[in-house]
């Protein structure tokens, strides 16, 4: 059973870490699979964690990026009240947008926490030997390409941790032409996820998916629920969904955990 912070608090207990799920991870069917995979890993390796459950709210990222600062400040105020109320110190999240906003934008509003994105968290668990990958796992020798999400990569300079995690799978990591700090956006950021794209010659996710498919990889690894959705649609537009899968690194690790 996954426990909420309220349940921990009722027993006067504090989990090792708060798992901030985020809106996509909570409601979007595709993203829920990432959430479940990550929760499964945490449970299996014995990390004590809590979720906020119904008390979690949108961080306000899409509102702020669209330009609606009032709404953002409202959401931030409420979330910080909740988090500080529980005395939260450490947060892990599967969403780079939540990660960025907690790391860079909540502190000056009074929300100061140690925040980790799940790729860094997984890398640590692997390094500490808490997460162990089974020998000859499903992805051994398979070609995987990694898509840098903007809010983990350029926004916060995290390029290595997710790649380290993928290396643990013994897969063959191939890079796209635009990778690392030159990585190309999936098209969802800045609240684009919630509106039609402006008129153009093609869609951003189509362009990016094409680049990923060109590497010949069978798996496109992502670290963001929005990227996952965008790239999945992009792969479909090229009618490659039977050959090429888009998976979050949490899903890849979960499928390769030692029994």
């Amino acid at each position, binding site marked *: 059973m996954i426990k909420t912070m309220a349940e921990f608090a009722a027993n006067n207990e504090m989990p090792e870490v708060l798992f901030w799920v985020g809106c996509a991870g909570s409601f979007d069917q595709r993203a829920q699979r990432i959430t479940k995979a990550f929760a499964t890993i945490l449970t299996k390796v014995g990390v004590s964690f809590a979720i906020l459950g119904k008390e979690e709210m949108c961080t306000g990222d899409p509102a702020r990026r669209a330009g609606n600062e009032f709404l953002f400040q409202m959401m931030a105020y409420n979330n910080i009240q909740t988090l500080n109320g529980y005395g939260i110190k450490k947060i892990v999240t599967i969403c780079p947008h939540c990660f960025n906003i907690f790391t860079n*934008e909540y502190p000056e509003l009074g929300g100061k926490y140690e925040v980790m994105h799940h790729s860094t968290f997984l890398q640590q668990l692997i390094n500490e030997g808490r997460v162990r990958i089974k020998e000859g796992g499903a992805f051994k020798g398979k070609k995987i390409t990694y898509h840098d999400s903007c809010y983990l990569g350029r926004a916060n300079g995290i390029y290595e941790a997710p790649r380290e995690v993928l290396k643990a799978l013994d897969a063959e990591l191939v890079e796209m032409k635009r990778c690392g700090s030159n990585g190309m956006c999936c098209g969802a950021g800045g609240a684009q996820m919630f509106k039609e794209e402006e008129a153009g010659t093609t869609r951003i996710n189509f362009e990016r998916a094409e680049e990923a498919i060109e590497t010949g990889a069978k798996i496109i690894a992502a670290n963001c629920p929005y990227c996952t959705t965008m790239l999945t649609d992009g792969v479909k537009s090229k009618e490659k969904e039977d050959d090429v899968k888009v998976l979050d690194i949490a899903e890849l690790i979960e499928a390769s955990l030692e029994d």
Partner: protein
Amino acid sequence: MHLLQQIVFILCAGTAIGIFTKKVVEVRRNILLGRDENLTDQSGRRWRNVLLLAFGQKKMFKRPLPAVLHFFVYAGFVLINIEVLEILIDGIFGTERIFQAPLGAFYNVVIGFFEILAFLTLIAVIVFLIRRNILKVKRLSMHELDGFPKRDANTILYIEIVLMCMLLLMNAMEGAIQLKEGVGNGFLISSLIAPLFTGLSLDMLNIIKHTCWWGHILGIFAFLNYLPYSKHFHILLAFPNAFYTRLTPQGKMANMPEVQNEVLYMMQPELAPTATDAAPVQHRFGAKDVMDLSWKNLLDAYSCTECGRCTSVCPANITGKKLSPRKIMMDTRDRLEEVGENINKNKNFVDDGKSLVHDYISVEELRACTTCQACVEACPVSIEPLSIINQLRRYLIMEESNAPQEWNLMSSNIENNMAPWKFSPDDRDKWANEMEPSA
């Protein structure tokens, strides 16, 4: 040198520097029209950025070929300026090659080195012209550069060619004179062409030499005064711009303390300032026009080299959207210059019924941005087009309530359901209940 020549030279130099200074003061005034932003903390890291980004041109080297060529031109610019110093002193005091005697034989080495640079600059500039006009490299030949920007880029390259040729020709004349008099054979590169001119009379050689000398220095004065109107202003502004560049992670969006406080006072009215407290300055939410932007945004605009590296990596632009981060910077500068002209004419800014948003930058452009920061990462001069985009978007939403229907829906969902989609907040942890009990 003749006394008359000295006087003419001093007059020319004085006028050139005077006009330039006047324009620089004006540019500074324009930049300071922007909102205040304190960017002087952590001076150690800031100086490091000046060294790495401006002097070291770190980001240029993401694209090696133009980087190397640009480096020649840049080194040429910086070092040949030392020679210009000599020219200035010679011009004012009527001396000739004042550094020659004190430096002795070393002088020839130095000038030889400058000649190599001048030669490399010449080659680089020719390659640049070819890339722009014959190969038509995409980012250098897009439509947003039609008209002045395209002419500007080429003009600068032609001026460079003329200046470098004058310099080499002048030295070649001197080489030819030395050859004729049998007292030496000139400097490293120019000596190669000097023999071509030994057929001319000594008088003729001297006339050409002095013409080149004058042409070179007058060219430099003209160049200096062209700079503030050109994308080439970056050769000066890249340095302060690197110093004042942001030190926080690129993902951090600037806070709006006034909105933060408003929300705070709404939630906790007991914290609200009483009427006796001084009311903070109220300005517009976000930015409608250049005066609403930060002064750093405006310095950015004057520093932009219009190289288009930002646009060439912009996912919106790559996929055919109207948005181009370079155009955002060019528009900001054009509007700021227009506002500056307005102030020159009327003493104070008189409303001209125009603004940066709508008249220069359209809503459609602003809407296309994914806030991916690729433009910021790519810019070799530490410019942040995204910062301007964000502020203009804030204005559109908060002052004009100008949002696409889908964004209004998103906002109302966030407000009512605590998520951007229309789901019941009660279902937020439904996934947890669906998990296998063993997990």
